[in-house]
């Protein structure tokens, strides 16, 4: 099973890649880990004339803590995120999301930048970057810019990136010390794309009321969504079963899932409500252990 013929160009730096993009315009596509693009090319859903390989640009592979945020190079592989002690300690939900992507082989090769730009409506990182209010750093011919996660996903498989731009870095603001997060995913078989998933980050004050809260979900439509209405429902309130049920109900009512082989729209709505309720409960339990006394 061969893709259509293409010209292969290896970029050794971001500058290289931008020059190649400028030269080839719409004929070119960037190749990161290739775990979505290569199969799409074999099925000839994608037929780029030029493939610009950015996977091995060393400057784009790092995980570091800097001025109140975790910064990830776009070519950092899922396995590195899953195994990073820094991420496990500071943003466990990100490590959890990385660990639930596909299988070992895909995680060894696929990258966070590639997955975000692929923007699969059922991908795993979307909910996380929205819950954490991450910033996407991009570089193009006209210079750098930062796209907030909330503006990044424009439609299924589409992002706010221009065709001559490259996503270079994902900046995740560090959650408050007493805050806790969780990423939960409902999948048909292990490693499949999500039927529904929820990323919940929250903290409790000394009285047990919800302080900071960030929630992202997948499976509610063509793009991952920030659950703003649920966030406002929970913020400042004392948590209770009734409130959590209300949160599930709220997301269920606003969701417009796409019916496919993974389930009917009605089923997916209920699944999303259930997974969100479960994620809030789990995050609460984790946050309770960290709340100020």
């Amino acid at each position, binding site marked *: *099973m*061969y*893709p*259509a*013929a*293409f*010209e*292969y160009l*290896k970029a050794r730096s971001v500058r290289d890649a931008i020059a190649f993009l400028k030269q080839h315009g719409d004929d070119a596509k960037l*190749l990161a880990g*290739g*775990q979505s693009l*290569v*199969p799409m*090319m*074999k*099925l000839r859903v994608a037929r780029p004339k030029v*493939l610009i*390989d950015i*996977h091995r640009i060393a400057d784009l592979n790092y995980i570091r803590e800097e001025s109140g945020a975790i910064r990830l190079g776009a070519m950092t592989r899922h*396995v590195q995120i899953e195994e990073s002690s820094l991420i496990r300690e500071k943003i466990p939900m990100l490590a959890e999301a990385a660990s639930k992507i*596909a*299988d*070992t*082989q*895909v995680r*060894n*090769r696929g990258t966070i930048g590639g997955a975000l730009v692929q923007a699969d409506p059922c991908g795993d990182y979307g909910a996380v970057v929205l819950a954490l209010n991450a910033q996407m750093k991009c570089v193009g011919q006209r210079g750098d810019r930062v796209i907030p996660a909330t503006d990044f996903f424009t439609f299924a498989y589409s992002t706010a990136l221009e065709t001559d731009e490259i996503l270079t870095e994902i900046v995740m603001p560090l959650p408050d010390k007493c805050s806790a997060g969780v990423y939960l995913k409902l999948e048909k078989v*292990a*490693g499949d794309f999500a039927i529904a998933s929820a990323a919940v980050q929250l903290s409790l004050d000394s009285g047990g009321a919800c302080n900071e809260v960030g929630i992202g979900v997948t499976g509610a439509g063509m793009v991952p969504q920030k659950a703003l209405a649920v966030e406002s429902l929970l913020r400042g309130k004392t948590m209770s079963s009734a409130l959590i049920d209300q949160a599930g109900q709220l997301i269920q009512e606003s969701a417009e899932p796409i019916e496919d082989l993974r389930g009917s729209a009605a089923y997916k709505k209920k699944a999303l409500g259930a997974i969100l309720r479960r994620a809030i409960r789990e995050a609460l339990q984790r946050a309770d252990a960290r709340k100020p006394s």
Partner: protein
Amino acid sequence: MLKKISLTVNGKLCSGEVESRTLLAHFLRDGLRLTGTHLGCVVGRCGACTVLWNGAPVKSCMVFAVQAAGDDIVTVEGLAQDKRLHPLQEAFWKNDAVECGYCTPGMLMSAYGLLDKRIKPTEKDIERAISGNLCRCTGYGNIVAAIKEAALNFTK
């Protein structure tokens, strides 16, 4: 247009000419005649074509050969040394972890990647490590048992 590539396969420097669109799996099988790497689905779902890429299991049908230029690849042929089975292969044999055998090369390479990483994997770790490898004979129980046994005396 053909491109010349050089890479290390099973410890030996190999080179060949490939089209950009040649998959690593096809280069290994057709170019180097290393037919131990199996092709099942060729869309990245079955894991039969798993090889080690710089030490980590990847599906060789999901990588173009040109992308592996300069890299270190180990295929199932790289496991046995001096005509002696690798202990991992021995454990598969002893535990009847091979039925039709089609998935075996991929299973072995995924298992190798796991054992190379941690000395004592739990059953969960093993199941997770081979979750990208399909066995259509469904003989997973014996495969997990074999990997567990091999972990006890694993050496590179």
